[in-house]
């Protein structure tokens, strides 16, 4: 692993978006603290690993999840629903970071327990700023139970 452990989990199927987010993290020396997963199945496998019988699962729970909605196989809504319905993960903040700015997506995300909904800005400056601010807020300012 690395010195800061997994703090940020990014679920993003678009490699360009993932790389742009990582670029911001690199600038803030956070690139080593995150894991990028390409779809809902990978995300769920990471959060809820199959454990061998009688052996506790090796859980690596992040401090925050940046979740895209439109994902191959299992979509973001399903990942969100699982995170929020499991006792062990329900307190992990989930930030929806998506291209969508559709009202029904915003509503459904909040209905399922999303902690924040951010439409990815198209303008690079705004995009970079949004990622930097979100990271700063959820990792440094926000407090979670047991921290």
């Amino acid at each position, binding site marked *: 692993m690395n010195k800061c452990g997994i703090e940020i989990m990014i679920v993003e199927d678009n490699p360009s978006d993932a790389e*742009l987010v990582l670029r911001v993290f690199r600038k803030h020396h956070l690139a080593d603290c995150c894991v990028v997963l390409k779809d809902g199945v990978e995300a769920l496998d990471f959060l809820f690993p199959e454990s061998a019988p009688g052996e506790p699962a090796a859980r690596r729970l992040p401090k925050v999840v940046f979740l895209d909605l439109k994902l191959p196989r299992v979509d973001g809504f399903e990942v969100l629903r699982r995170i929020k319905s499991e006792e062990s993960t329900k307190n992990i903040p989930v930030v929806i970071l998506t291209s969508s700015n559709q009202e029904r997506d915003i509503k459904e995300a909040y209905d399922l327990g999303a902690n924040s909904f951010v439409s990815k800005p198209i303008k690079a400056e705004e995009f970079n700023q949004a990622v930097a601010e979100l990271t700063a807020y959820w990792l440094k300012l926000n407090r979670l139970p047991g921290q």
Partner: protein
Amino acid sequence: MTPAPAAARPPAPPETTGLRERIAGLEAASRATLNILEDFDEEKGKSRQLQRATLNLLEDFAEERRKLQQVQKATVNLLEDMSYERAKLGEAQRALLNILDDVEVERARAERAKALTEAANKELEAFSYSVSHDLRAPLRAISGFVEAVVEDYSPRLDDEGRRYLGLVKENAHKMGQLIDDLLAFSRLGRMEIARTRVDLEELAKEVFEELAALAPGRKLRFSALPVPAALADKALLRQVLVNLLANAVKFTKHRDEAVIEFGCLRGDGGCAYYVGDNGVGFDMQYAGKLFGVFQRLHDVSEFEGTGVGLALACRIVTRHGGRIWAEGKVSEGAKFYFTLP
């Protein structure tokens, strides 16, 4: 009155007294006869009365019979009328059943149409969703990586190289705006209109203040005249005023002082609200092109914008059942009118 039988057969009299007696007897007989005749007359009168009464009775009877016949005729007529009415009722019933059948057919047809419309709307929604999601992603990548090049490799580029990258970024941004505007425009066609009483004067003032805050260097003179309230969707109407007033602010930017007015023109069919300005105006021969999507009458380098604003305003007004039109003259300003029935 009955004559004495003795008078009828007088005894044989002596010479004188006998004659006198016979005369008296005769007189008595004649009286008796008269009496009998009188009595007979009386009987005849009575019999006549009886006859008259009988005749009367018969007459009355005939009258009754006539009346009875009339009643009978009336009854027959009534029965005839009734069967006629019954036939008519039957017809009416049949007609009603036919109408109900037709209504049923129409309803089925309307339901099919509604289902088709709903399916089309869903498809359109899915389309705009994927437009919104999938067209943005590559734009974000273009913008993001150009920015990365500018930030990380700037020292290795000359001025012209940096200028080109600036243009790429600018165009990516503009396309993003076009997508947003187009999506807003397509959403409008499917949105439900929720009508409430809207104080347009107040709304215009509110919108103008927001717009003026975005143009701090400008000298803007705005007046909102009293206008009748409208029954309309407030959020959508706000959008109309934002678009019209923003245009008024934009197209007056070369004036030392912009004069913008919101008011209404009262006519026969109610009132036409308007936003007028003293800006660059336009040539009336292009008035029909003003409200088309992506139509622009001015150079984009002089007046920014995607060309969707007026199309959006037009769509909102039309969806309210109203009309929108414009009057203008080159360099003398423009006036945009709209009605809300």
